[in-house]
């Protein structure tokens, strides 16, 4: 199959999410249902990418979506676009969960930490998310090995940068720089503006 051609590198996101979120902030349940349909797959996706456990991921994703409903009146456009606000919250909650679980349980071995696998088994067949996935994969490949590992461990595994440093046996300062440089490269490759 040929590499998809990106005419516009921005993701295909319904342009009216902003408006929907404002309606949700006014207590509009129908708008919330529409917002759910637009973002729930990505919310569950990012939570599952971090937690991997199916049942726990669903539970956390539900919490996130209810929190979106609950806190929608607090949303302001200065906090970023609606979809960014929601997906940042989803990642935040997934990371909170993985840290609370891992605090109680034994830590994975370093080898397991380095083995990154996203939940690609039940990925959406939606064309836009398939294109998005291809593009993100392609851009992740533009990172140096250390940048990619650092970003991946932090984002998909919910490690703090101290834990990333431990896992990769690198100095703290190096990891901070790798995370930042890695995101700069990803940002530029994806053509993100904010």
């Amino acid at each position, binding site marked *: 199959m040929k590499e998809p051609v990106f005419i516009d590198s921005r993701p295909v996101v319904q342009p009216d999410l902003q408006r929907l979120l404002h309606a949700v902030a006014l207590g509009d349940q129908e708008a919330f249902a529409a917002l759910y349909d637009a973002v*729930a*797959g990505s919310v569950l996706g990012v939570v599952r990418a971090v937690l991997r456990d199916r049942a726990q991921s669903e539970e956390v994703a539900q919490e996130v979506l209810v929190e979106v409903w609950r806190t929608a009146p607090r949303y302001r456009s200065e906090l970023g676009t609606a979809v960014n606000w929601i997906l940042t919250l989803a990642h935040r909650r997934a990371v909170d969960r993985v840290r609370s679980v891992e605090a109680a349980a034994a830590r994975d071995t370093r080898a397991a930490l380095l083995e990154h696998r996203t939940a690609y088994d039940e990925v959406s067949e939606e064309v836009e998310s398939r294109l998005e996935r291809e593009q993100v994969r392609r851009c992740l490949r533009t990172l140096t090995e250390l940048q990619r590992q650092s970003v991946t461990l932090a984002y998909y595994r919910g490690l703090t*940068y101290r834990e990333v440093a431990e896992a990769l046996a690198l100095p703290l300062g190096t990891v901070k720089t790798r995370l930042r440089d890695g995101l700069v490269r990803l940002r530029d490759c994806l053509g993100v*503006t904010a």
Partner: protein
Amino acid sequence: MTTTDPHALTGAYALHALDGREAAAFERHLAGCDACGQEVAEFTATTARLALASTVRTPPAMRDQVLRRVTTVRQTPPGAAPPQRVRRGVRRGGGPVRWALAASVAAAVAFGATAVWQYERAEDARLRAAQTQRQAEALAEVLAAPDARSRSARMAGGAGTLVVSPGRDRAVFVATGMSPPPRGKVYQLWFADGEEMRSAGLMAPGRGSQTVLMRGPVGGASDVGITVEPAGGSKQPTSEPVALLDMPA
């Protein structure tokens, strides 16, 4: 790590890779550093793309559960914001203001034009400050419109009144004493336009009496239907209507 350059933490912060104390310290820096603010915004938009790329199919049961849960979850008020923000944030879709309003409008329908005028005065006094009451105003306009016509029918253990203003091309539905829909369900209003059913919005769950400004123009609709739908509503009716009302002539 107090001696390190705080600007270097933008990446770790956007990835949620700082612990609580470090994140709080960085946020204090962020509040006064435009460069970091811009970079964090860009990085957050970047990580959102990682999330979008992880999109999966969601189980249908999850949708039902979430939509049912939000019917019982109270929303956070816009909160400790400056006065103009509080004013802007007043909700017109939920909360006590709307219900007080609904009650007074229902009374207006029952008692006629004088009550409408009183309602408008009441609105002046109580709600002018809450300027996002455009919906309430549109609702009052429909009820007070010189060309408003109404039609009532018994339904669901109570009564429903449809008020239509052809001039404004809007309609209002007033429910009185209707039995609440089953738990996790809502009444949804529809404009029937030939074969096409257009959603005209949801009634608030758990209230037998309320006044709803129907969403969207009346257009060529010949009837208004009310169905029982899962929380959050449906794109198309999924059940037989509990009531159908002809457009008042």
